[in-house]
């Protein structure tokens, strides 16, 4: 479904990604783990088209999308839930969700809204409140819900469990599992490497802008290098 070949990105003159190769197949849950500054968020931003590509190619369902504008990618179904939640703080919860469905027809967006409220009932109760007043966990649910409003075919999740209490982390991962069960293709970045690998079909390890390891989630969990560097064992 998604194929990345030799992808490189720079911030000014500083290279952040130095030739990434990876692929995500239809229906797969692929995780990306790596330390802070390894380039995980940069990679997701390049995949969403909000960061220009320096070199390489990104293909989605066979079509070259390397130079496609962000909104065109959203229309194709490449939807990102960004790091740090990034909700529209002064707007209400419901407005945030409706903006997630900005490119969809009104009736479709209405049905999607009902599904998001069914998935996160707490959001329905807060629908008229400014998103900025929600707790961290609720904001994360809102960010995921806003992403789902766009009818993702490939969902890019950037650090969905960051800064959340353990119980909420469990809740977010349960939500990711249920999305996978509904056959959404997911590309997951998370600092919680253990959980991200345990849930993944396949995974990549990123170090200073390069993919250094790849394999099934299970294999990487038992890989000595990974255990030492990312799982603290």
């Amino acid at each position, binding site marked *: 479904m998604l194929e990345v070949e030799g992808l490189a990105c720079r911030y000014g003159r500083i290279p952040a990604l130095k030739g990434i190769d990876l692929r995500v197949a239809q229906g797969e849950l692929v995780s990306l783990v790596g330390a802070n500054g390894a380039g995980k968020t940069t990679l997701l931003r390049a995949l*969403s088209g*909000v960061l220009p590509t320096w070199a390489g190619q990104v293909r989605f369902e066979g079509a070259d999308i390397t130079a496609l*504008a*962000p*909104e065109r990618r*959203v*229309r194709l179904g490449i*939807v*990102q839930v*960004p790091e740090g939640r*990034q*909700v*529209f*703080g*002064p*707007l209400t919860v419901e*407005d*945030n969700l*409706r*903006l*997630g469905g*900005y*490119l969809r027809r009104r009736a479709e967006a209405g049905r999607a809204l009902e599904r998001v409220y069914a998935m996160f009932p707490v959001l329905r109760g807060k629908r008229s409140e400014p998103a*900025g*007043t*929600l*707790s961290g966990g609720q*904001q994360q649910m809102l960010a995921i819900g*806003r992403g789902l409003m*766009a009818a993702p075919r490939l969902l890019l999740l950037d650090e969905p469990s960051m800064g959340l209490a353990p119980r909420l982390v469990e809740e977010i991962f349960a939500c990711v599992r249920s999305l996978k069960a509904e056959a959404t293709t997911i590309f997951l970045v998370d600092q919680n490497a253990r959980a991200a690998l345990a849930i993944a079909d396949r995974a990549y390890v990123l170090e200073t802008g390069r993919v250094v390891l790849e394999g099934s989630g299970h294999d990487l969990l038992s890989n000595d290098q990974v255990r030492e560097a990312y799982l603290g064992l």
Partner: protein
Amino acid sequence: MSAQFVQFLLTGLTVGAIYALVALGFSIIYNASQVINFAQGEFVMIGGMATVWFAAAGVPYAAAIPLAVAAAAAVGLALEKFAVEPARGASVVTLIIITIGASIFLRGLATLIWDKQLHVLKPFSGDTPIVLGGATLLPQSLWVLGVSLAIVLALAWFFGRTLLGKAMLATSNNRLAAQLAGIRVRHVLALAFALSAALGAIAGILIAPIAFTSYDVGVMLGLKGFAAAILGGMGSGAGAVVGGIVLGIAETMSAGYISSAYKDAIALLAMLAVLFFLPSGLLGRRGTERV
């Protein structure tokens, strides 16, 4: 209430409504791009001058006014496309200097296309004053107040009720998240400039029958609108309206009761006072967000 006080109040409201429209233009562009567009006053000038020009060419008001507003909106789009957009990524100060340059350019262009004379536009519905509690009100003032009110209500509906309006608010709040939601942020920016230009032009057309118009009318009106936006809180729509009205009334009262020599100083004093004592303005955003 003395008749004199009512008179000053009515005049102040009229002037204030014009300031409010200009201030709204500042706020809309500021929200969309964090740029303070010092060419805002030139949109006011273009509105008035273009209407005078079309009217002189025999075009009836009903067509001349929409044409003038459209011309200003086109200039607003061009400003965004050819002056602001190419400098994307530059610092806000650079962008502000670009808008100052654009305003000088537009004034120069206006003297070339038109002239340096004062022009007057015939009032929309005659000039027989209406007597109200001992004070008099020009019919044109009713136009100013009515149209301004209609515009404020329309903007409140647009930003409060439509998805496009909310997309503009979302873009100003979080550009990255807006892009990820599929909002074309460049279109939002262009729309903001066109909308602000149209608002400025409407203000310039409404005031032209009362206060004359000329190639440099935008300098002072732009400055007053800027002061009103600061007074109300830059970026706040309600603040722009309140700031405009307060400033208009304060100015007229001081001109009437103290001296008209200090009229223009009032706007600057109000702006300085706000910046010193209440930097976010009367209705500006205060940090209530959880991060």
